[in-house]
């Protein structure tokens, strides 16, 4: 028997991450509620740039995913890893770098996103300096984990540790892959890939951010905290191993289901669908494993709020992992994509699975961190019921909104005309549901505030056990004869890491490389030309304002879409789009064929106040575009970077660009002046609005017969 060693668990770092998670959670829910209200009462936008929906929506998603869920993951992982490996975290300095680095990223996001610094890649909007900071914090986390695994006292790794380590390695790969970008200035960059390649890379990332940030670490947490709370081992440990390998291998292929019926090659879409449908097997294996862990303990679920939170969390996981595969079937996707059905699906996951597992975990963990009991079980129960109602009020109206609007988009009269030709009519019909959703969000936020109060009171009545004493025998590995390969793998951190890496790389590589390096995947269209300098500037304003949050640029090959918007979108049209701007939600209409559809003056009036051109519109006004002068200081650098990346701007174009921009702006201002009285053409041509109009009028016109 090895010698018994005494050591201490570091609880301070766990407390820090937990408190950060709760505080930022409340921020994320509040911003979510605010933007939900902006859709119901557009006046709340107030004509203030940083307060507009397009700029705040990424702040909400980033705060929910990386600040609330991210900090909760780290709290849960640092607590359980130390106990499962019977060792203090490898380095307190790395823990601190990780903690403060991550909080700095969050503060950076909270400042830069409302200012409009965004790459526009969903859930990866942060610009390159913050991406670098994320990398530093993430490496500190990984080094700390692997270091702890090496200096552990327990010979074998419990399955939760595998989930954590696959999270670390996969998120690292995803983050680096989707942020391959070339800086233009300190707060502006262009992605290396364009158009459909950029889209595939983004949704390989986007889907796997869900998989490896919102799912695998939480499954690890489930496999630790659910047995803890129920005080019994997981139902089937064998099933958890199958769950792990099949889930991480299959998940990575599923990204293209975000791009069904798009310009992406068919074979990639098929792979995405097939693997998404398969995902139901490992996901439900894991869900059932979690629920069956409570066999014989269901009577306690009635009493114990912690178990209640966990049961709803695991059930929500089951619901969204059933719904995900169904939504990946092309015929279902044709209805659901771009509608409110998708946010409903996502919020079952974040509010139910992530949110409730987090709260359950914190209610379990806080009394232990502070050497006390929970301040109020009653308040925890109230939190549970208000939160559950909040989720229902959030998602049920959104399901109805999604179905209603989608059916209206596709409805034709017997004469063969669109029944609801005006997009706003379809939006009108779902307004009450948008209001109900905001009510659901306010309930969930109220629950979280009660939870915050309860946990802080718990902390107050106890005292943080900063260094918790523990003892365990020193690590002593005696390999058994005829040991299986997997048994060996379970105690070797680096090979485990490498095998997990191989498992996740296969899918991404098979989908991405042929599409990127086979010329036939993007049939070239001769008439498609690079954006002019002014259009490029307008496009960057479109990116800055987050227009992509509500407007897609991807007309699918359905009659209901080609009649409403025009010719369906082709891969070859996007080859100069860095980044691609297909979007994932149509709160407003698709814009890929908007070029030439309206007069310049329509766009001018519309951006000044959307209700001028469409009384029932819920789009915010953009008065600052009419006040701000267009900043052309980096246009030469932009052209140079894009040329380096493959856009065929002729040599010396950057020198000619200012004159060409002035000429194009003059033309637009002249057309505006002919329609609108009392304009000051000399002032107007310097303004941002002119560049934006130039871009909007260019959209989708390359393949139109002139």
């Amino acid at each position, binding site marked *: 028997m090895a010698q018994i060693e005494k050591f201490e668990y570091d609880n301070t770092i766990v407390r820090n991450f937990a408190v950060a998670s709760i505080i930022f959670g409340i921020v994320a829910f509040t911003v979510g509620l605010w933007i939900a209200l902006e859709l119901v009462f557009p006046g709340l936008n107030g004509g203030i740039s940083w307060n507009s929906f397009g700029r705040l929506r990424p702040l909400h998603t980033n705060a929910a995913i990386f600040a609330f869920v991210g900090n909760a993951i780290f709290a849960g992982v640092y607590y359980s890893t130390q106990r499962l490996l019977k060792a203090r975290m490898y380095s307190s300095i790395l823990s601190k770098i990780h903690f403060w680095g991550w909080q700095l990223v969050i503060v950076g996001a909270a400042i830069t996103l409302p200012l409009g610094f965004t790459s526009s890649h969903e859930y990866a909007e942060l610009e390159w300096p913050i991406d670098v900071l994320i990398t530093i914090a993430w490496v500190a986390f990984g080094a700390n984990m692997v270091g702890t695994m090496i200096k552990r006292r327990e010979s074998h790794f419990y399955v939760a540790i595998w989930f954590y380590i696959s999270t670390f390695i996969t998120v690292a790969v995803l983050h680096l892959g989707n942020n391959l970008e070339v800086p233009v200035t300190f707060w502006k960059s262009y992605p290396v890939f364009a158009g459909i390649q950029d889209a595939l890379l983004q949704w390989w990332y986007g889907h796997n951010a869900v998989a490896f940030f919102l799912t695998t670490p939480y499954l690890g947490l489930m496999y630790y905290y659910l047995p803890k709370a129920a005080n019994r081992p997981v139902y089937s440990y064998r099933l958890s191993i199958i769950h792990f390998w099949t889930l991480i291998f299959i998940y990575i292929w599923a990204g293209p289901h975000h791009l069904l019926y798009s310009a992406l090659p068919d074979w990639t879409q*098929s792979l995405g669908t097939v693997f998404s449908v398969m995902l139901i097997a490992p996901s439900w294996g894991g869900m059932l494993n979690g629920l069956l862990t409570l066999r014989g303990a269901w009577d306690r679920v009635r009493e*114990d709020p*912690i178990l209640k939170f966990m049961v709803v969390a695991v059930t929500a996981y089951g619901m969204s992992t059933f719904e995900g595969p169904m939504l990946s079937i092309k015929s279902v996707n044709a209805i659901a994509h771009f509608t409110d059905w998708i946010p409903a699906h996502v919020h079952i996951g974040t509010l139910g699975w992530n949110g409730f597992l987090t709260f359950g975990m914190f209610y379990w963990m806080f009394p232990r961190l502070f050497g006390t009991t929970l301040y109020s079980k009653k308040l925890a129960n109230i939190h549970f019921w208000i939160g559950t109602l909040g989720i229902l009020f959030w998602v049920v109206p959104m399901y109805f909104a999604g179905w209603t609007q989608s059916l209206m988009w596709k409805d034709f009269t017997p004469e063969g005309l669109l029944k609801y030709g005006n997009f706003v009519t379809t939006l009108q019909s779902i307004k009450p549901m948008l209001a109900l959703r905001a009510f659901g969000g306010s309930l969930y936020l109220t629950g979280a505030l009660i939870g915050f109060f309860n946990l802080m009171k718990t902390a107050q009545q106890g005292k943080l056990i900063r260094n918790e004493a523990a003892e365990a025998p020193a690590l002593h590995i005696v390999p058994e004869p005829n040991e299986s390969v997997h048994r060996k793998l379970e105690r070797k951190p680096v090979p485990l890491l490498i095998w997990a890496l191989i498992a996740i790389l296969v899918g991404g590589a098979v989908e991405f490389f042929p599409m990127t390096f086979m010329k036939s995947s993007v049939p070239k269209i001769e008439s498609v030309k690079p954006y002019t300098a002014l259009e490029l500037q307008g496009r960057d304003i479109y990116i800055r304002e987050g227009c992509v949050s509500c407007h897609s640029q991807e007309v699918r090959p359905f009659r209901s879409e080609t009649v409403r918007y025009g010719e369906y979108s082709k891969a070859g049209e996007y080859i100069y789009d860095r980044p691609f701007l297909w979007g994932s939600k149509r709160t407003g209409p698709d814009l890929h064929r908007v070029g030439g559809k309206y007069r310049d003056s329509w766009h001018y009036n519309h951006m000044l106040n959307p209700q001028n051109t469409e009384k029932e519109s819920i789009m915010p006004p953009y008065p600052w575009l009419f006040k701000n002068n267009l900043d052309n200081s980096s246009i030469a650098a932009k052209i140079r970077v894009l040329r380096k990346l493959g856009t065929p701007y002729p040599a010396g174009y950057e020198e000619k660009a200012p004159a060409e921009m002035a000429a194009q702006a003059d033309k637009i201002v002249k057309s505006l002046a002919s329609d609108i009285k009392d304009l000051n053409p000399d002032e107007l041509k310097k303004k941002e609005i002119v560049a934006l109009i130039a871009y909007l009028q260019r959209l989708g016109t390359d393949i139109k017969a002139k």
Partner: protein
Amino acid sequence: MFKGLFNGYNWAGIVSLLIFFSVFVIATVMVMMRKKSDIDYMANLPLEDDDNPENSK
């Protein structure tokens, strides 16, 4: 002779089905070969430290 056999098939679908099937089979076989004592030992790892005071009062 075999040319017609492969025409018109969705190879992406077939290959992915095969991959799916083999990953599950390999994982299941790997797991079934494990000794019960090993599995029980691993399953009980989270419950080893006796930090189970009453959750709340």
